[in-house]
């Protein structure tokens, strides 16, 4: 980990409240992100990675509720901040980019104005000043002819351009932390690469830490120094990115890595099926006893059903939550 921790999440618990009963949708998740560091959170749909991000900016909505733990941002506990205080952080110190650039911009407002609004909102700039800064911000995200593009409406821009505008908005106030929730899922592959490069370059230039959320292991491996793997609301493994892919420690991570298709594998090894992890992710209301991965785990023994594994530190750095970790 590089330097002092910017964000520290300790034993975060997020509950799904159904008919007065609370189910731990996210349980005992701890991780930290250093200043300027890029941390990846991977896992399949419904594993709790997106709601973890929402919890960080205090925007959990019913039926989800904060269940416990601490979120420290720059050493300050923010999990119980009143909304008025939280609002000053959002978009300013902690910002976010979304999955859907098609709908994340107001269709009736020129994009320049939407960028400018951030300066007015958080930095107390005048509209005149803000609009000038908006042109700079657009130039920063490598939009050609930014002085003309600021007057464009979102529907006049392509998906990639809109995502650039979103990035310009998110980074307008030079946040300390950028939450990127599947930022490229809706874009085609070539545009994806450009956008990722842009996020990487800009965050490096501004010293912005990034929490990259994705189900795409390749993307995470490319972008992040450290990776947290989530399964069924638990952080099952957290290590340096290259370690995770080279020698996965948790059986779930192992399964994920093994299930990746290898380009050209059919030519060298002949026709073979991709490896899969059998079974499905259990519903939040029906997580199994013991280790949450046990019904699908190849290495399951008695203890996996009887006991919830604790986090174990790995000799080469990182942590894993498994009784039989490699």
């Amino acid at each position, binding site marked *: 980990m590089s330097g002092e921790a910017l964000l520290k999440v300790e034993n975060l618990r997020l509950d799904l409240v159904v008919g007065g009963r609370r189910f731990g949708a996210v349980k005992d998740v701890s991780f930290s992100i250093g200043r300027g560091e890029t941390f990846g959170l991977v896992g399949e749909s419904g594993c709790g990675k997106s709601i973890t991000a929402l919890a960080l900016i205090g*925007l959990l909505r019913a039926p989800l509720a904060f269940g416990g733990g601490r979120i420290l941002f720059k050493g300050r506990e923010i999990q119980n901040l009143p909304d008025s205080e939280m*609002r000053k952080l959002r978009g300013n110190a902690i910002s976010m980019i979304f999955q859907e650039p098609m709908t994340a911009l107001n*269709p009736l407002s020129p994009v320049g104005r939407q960028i400018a609004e951030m300066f007015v909102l958080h930095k107390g700039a005048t509209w005149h000043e803000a609009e000038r800064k908006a042109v700079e911000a657009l130039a920063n995200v490598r939009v050609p002819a930014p002085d003309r593009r600021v007057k464009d409406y979102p529907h006049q821009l392509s998906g990639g351009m809109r995502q650039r505008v979103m990035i310009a908005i998110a980074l307008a106030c030079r946040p300390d932390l950028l939450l990127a929730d599947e930022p490229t899922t809706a874009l085609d592959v070539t545009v994806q690469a450009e956008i990722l490069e842009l996020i990487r370059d800009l965050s490096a230039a501004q010293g912005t830490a990034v929490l990259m959320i994705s189900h795409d292991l390749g993307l995470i491996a490319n972008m992040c120094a450290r990776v947290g793997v989530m399964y069924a609301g638990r952080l099952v493994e957290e290590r340096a990115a290259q370690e995770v892919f080279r020698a996965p420690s948790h059986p779930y991570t192992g399964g994920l890595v093994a299930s990746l298709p290898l380009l050209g594998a059919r030519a060298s090894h002949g026709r073979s099926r991709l490896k899969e992890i059998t079974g499905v992710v259990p519903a939040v209301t029906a997580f199994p006893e013991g280790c949450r991965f046990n019904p699908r785990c190849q290495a399951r023994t008695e203890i996996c059903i009887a006991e919830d594994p604790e986090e174990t530190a790995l000799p080469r750095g990182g942590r894993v939550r498994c009784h039989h970790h490699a």
Partner: protein
Amino acid sequence: MKFRANLVIGGALFATVVVAGALAPFLAHTDPVMDANLMNAEVAPGSEFWFGTDAQGRDIYSRVLYGARISLTVGIVSQLINTVIGVCLGLSAAYWGGWWDDFVSGLTNLMLAIPSLIFALAIMAILTPGLTSLLIALGLTNWSYTCRLSRASALSLKGQGYVQAAKVLGYGDIRIMLTQILPNILGPIIVIGTLGMGGAVLAEASLSFLGLGIRPPFPSWGSMLSDARDQITTAPWISIFPGLAIFMTVLGLNLLGDGLRDILDPQSRARTA
């Protein structure tokens, strides 16, 4: 852009009424209230009195012109009050939800259950008849449609990415409502506001007809119709011209509302832009 007959005709009719009302002092031949002359009572339309005269010998052309001022004032101001009330309630109810939404929805349903004209009648019966009372009565009784419409539109926008994004980026509730949601629901609100304006003109005429609106001798189209009741067979022009004025105004506003709906639909706008 393609030619939109309803927008052009509606706009032209409405503009005519606005101009007639605004320029009434210059266009009118006589003072609408003072120039009664029983010697000229019930003169048929002709070169001297274009629209004829009424039972008191007043020039109907002049009275219809001045009547436009009252009808338009009532139509525009009361509908503006309705729109402000309806949008504030509907938008905030959709955005905040919870008990406030239940309360607003309940109130809206209550208002819809009572015929608005009856409600306005009741208010007018308490207040003294006059322009201000009329504005209050009509301004407080017709917001339920606007409220429902803005609530429904805002509700569907609440889940939109850009509204969520604004939240994440640190916008306050009021700012989100005013900058993210309101501009995007303004189209249908303008349409229903224009249509409602026609309704308000009719409601003013009805109340004045019943003697609870503008009091004679001041010229309101409704009260002119009311006065003309007895002579409808002997001097039909006394009722035809104010009736025609009401008809044209309401028709114009409805066509205008229709036309606006066509161009304010965000989908069609995105295509033509």
